């Protein structure tokens, strides 16, 4: 199949950037979306142009490095990561618009690459359980009901890709933050720091310039890992509890 892509090109953080149109020929429907970009990049390189920069690493849908907005949808038309999207999801002759995640807290570094360091800093602000190495008690001394463990696992599968932010009209990082609050808050190990965690993480979330949540739910419809929306409600509940205890 032959397709046309319109890609956001921006040399660096200070550049204004614009959409540029390219044709890509002989695209196989079995190619992944990123392989299609590889092919385009080979073409660009040989013709002396700058290839398109995009983040990617595992290409298995687990590292969370990849992610672009395709035709207005974070990670494109399927609920999966960009690297796991295949060209069979598009028609021959399609015109595909490719843009970087847009959010105040995710400044563009180059082309389709953005800086998601804000997510790491949210984790720094409390997204952990303080368990110094070597201090851990015997693992089976602490049974965790299977249901809680499964639920915690579900939230822990977040890959930190940032699609939720890109999809959210408010540029809110609430689904990401809530996934971590839920993962750790559901486990007995996570209880001692539960209040300080939610306070620290929310403060940092806002500090980074993410928007507030308006419960629209766009985040969940683009999250490749199916992080559930009720995690946000749980975060709200936890913060309410912490504030009520006068912890902030």
């Amino acid at each position: 199949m032959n397709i046309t892509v319109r890609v956001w090109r921006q040399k660096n953080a200070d550049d204004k950037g614009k959409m540029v149109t390219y044709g890509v020929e002989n695209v196989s429907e079995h190619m992944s979306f990123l392989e299609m970009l590889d092919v385009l990049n080979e073409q660009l390189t040989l013709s002396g142009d700058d290839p398109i920069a995009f983040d990617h690493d595992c290409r298995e849908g687990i590292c969370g490095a990849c992610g672009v907005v395709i035709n207005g949808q974070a990670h494109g038309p399927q609920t999966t990561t960009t690297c796991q999207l295949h060209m069979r999801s598009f028609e021959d002759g399609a015109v595909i618009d490719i843009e970087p995640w847009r959010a105040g807290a995710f400044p563009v570094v180059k082309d389709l690459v953005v800086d998601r360091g804000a997510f790491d800093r949210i984790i720094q602000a409390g997204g952990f359980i303080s368990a110094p190495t070597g201090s851990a008690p015997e693992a089976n001394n602490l049974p965790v009901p299977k249901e809680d463990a499964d639920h915690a696992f579900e939230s822990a599968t977040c890959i930190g890709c940032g699609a939720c932010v890109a999809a959210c009209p408010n540029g809110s990082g609430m689904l990401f933050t809530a996934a971590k609050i839920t993962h750790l808050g559901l486990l007995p190990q996570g209880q001692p720091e539960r209040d300080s965690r939610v306070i620290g993480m929310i403060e940092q979330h806002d500090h980074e310039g993410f928007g507030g949540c308006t419960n629209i739910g766009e985040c969940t419809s683009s999250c490749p890992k199916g992080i559930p929306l009720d995690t946000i409600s749980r975060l709200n509940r936890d913060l309410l509890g912490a504030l009520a205890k006068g912890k902030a």
Partner: protein
Amino acid sequence: MTITEPYKNPSEQFHALGDDIHDAKAPKGPIEKRWDDHKFNAKLVNPANRRKISVLVVGTGLAGASAAATLGEAGYHVKSFCYQDSPRRAHSIAAQGGINAAKNYRNDGDSIYRLFYDTVKGGDFRARESNVYRLAQVSVNIIDQCVAQGVPFAREYGGLLDNRSFGGVQVSRTFYARGQTGQQLLIGAYQALERQIAAGTVEMNTRHEMLELIMVDDRARGIVVRDMVTGEIETHTADAVVLASGGYGNVFFLSTNAMGCNTTATWRAHRKGAYFANPCYTQIHPTCIPVSGDYQSKLTLMSESLRNDGRIWVPEKMNDERLASEIPEDERDYYLERIYPAFGNLVPRDIASRAAKYQCDAGKGVGPGGLGVYLDFADAIERLGRPAVEAKYGNLFDMYAQITGEDPYTEPMRIYPAVHYTMGGLWVDYDLQSNLTGLFVAGEANFSEHGANRLGASALMQGLADGYFVLPYTLANYLADGPFEKVDDSHAAVVEARQAVEERITTLLAINGTRTVDSYHKELGQIMWDYCGMERTEEGLTKAIGMIRDLKVDFWANVKVTGVNEELNQTLERAGRVADFFELGELMCIDALNRRESCGGHFRAESQTEDGEALRHDDEFAYVSAWEYGDKQPTLHKEPLEYEYVEMKSRSYK
């Protein structure tokens, strides 16, 4: 064909022979007391002093993140580096199956000793007993540590931890978190690391690629890194350097490794004098999704557990074009069940991989290019019912359908082997210190505990063992003599290292040739796969060495690297990595040529039994090959391996 007459090893035209290595610093005495004794004898660092001591940790995978977090927590001043935009994306994140530990929660006869025994045997008697025993010992603490951090391992209805059996062993000792164990363990280590970053003990440098090691007065004292966003070349100096930069499977271009996995950190250290051990030991995983076209950029692993219920077959007729469903039962060859009646579809990874290769070489392969065999669930679906199969393998089937666009419930899956793990790496002693003083190596980057073949679920165990429980002691022992004299940025060694990096980048950018970096990488990968892959021969390896050398020359004359250094330049990043892969690839072939035996992941066609099984030569090759870099040719140092506890036997799966 069996090698009987010892003859001059043909590899010797490519390398020199150096002194044997006799002291890997493993303590003596009863094996179960060695680590405790060693820890007791290790020097300690006064907590007040630790702040003044600095450590550089390259890599934030399981090994690097756990080491940096633990060292930071202990009070050292740590600087951590990774090439991704976040430490959480290190390749450990992709591990699926699980992590072993000798907890014996199943009461099925597991013990530290059995894990030790299985690992030594699984490694085909090419690993050190002392190291492996220690690994088995600390495996128990790893699980405790991870659970305390909130890693959501699978649990049973009673709320206790669940286990499964994995990778051809008879006990259930594998802890897992659905098909995302690596992810969950890494997130645990990452969170511990972020906690230290917040506490100010660890300084994180993301999107920073190490390009050179700095040696000062015969000690590893620093690294040169490139800021991948601005292109700035930075030097960082410290009292010790830890490399935890992962494996080098990407030398094959196509592998299950992440796109950015590279050898640059370890190869640069090797060029500065660190020995590279057993580079030819590569693990090829039998159940991966086959290549679909020449645009293919990487391969995806399908969990080994699929072989529990899937049956592997090929059509009996060559070049059979029919759909799988149209091929009648009696025209199918369930070759694993036929050749290995006892183990059938569950033979170890290397045997299953090689068997698939033979079928495809014989023209019986299926799918594009004839590079694939069927993994068929029709019987399982009939026997267990579709819901049961769905419950067990649903997510894997979905993944397969997502990638191939085919429905594995109705059509059998197509699978083919792919490079998955590299057992080789920088040589280290019992302390995980390389032969370069002050350079420590952890995780997949070192060569240590897996011998010639790694058992399933043991890499995660090793990475975390190294980072949480081994390095913090052995590194302290080294640092107790520190802080060492401060190294200034203007020190001749620092300046020289920085200049070397800058020159190399300038050269790469100046070539402005006609071929892309990827095209070279693909060609190198094809050579490696054809001649240094599942089956190796003297002839093929010799040929490959020549081809790689030619290709390397061509690369330095004709590669096209666009853009400039002072920007995010992904082509430049790849070019540097590929340049190092050429040199490593050559060494792998030389190592493979030298090792005229078949062991673990290394299969020399010349060394097999009458019925085509791998044949080891313990009398001649029971040693670690530690390679020293040389401008003209490498030098081989042999570290003899002795087995006091596990008797050397040959494997049989018939």
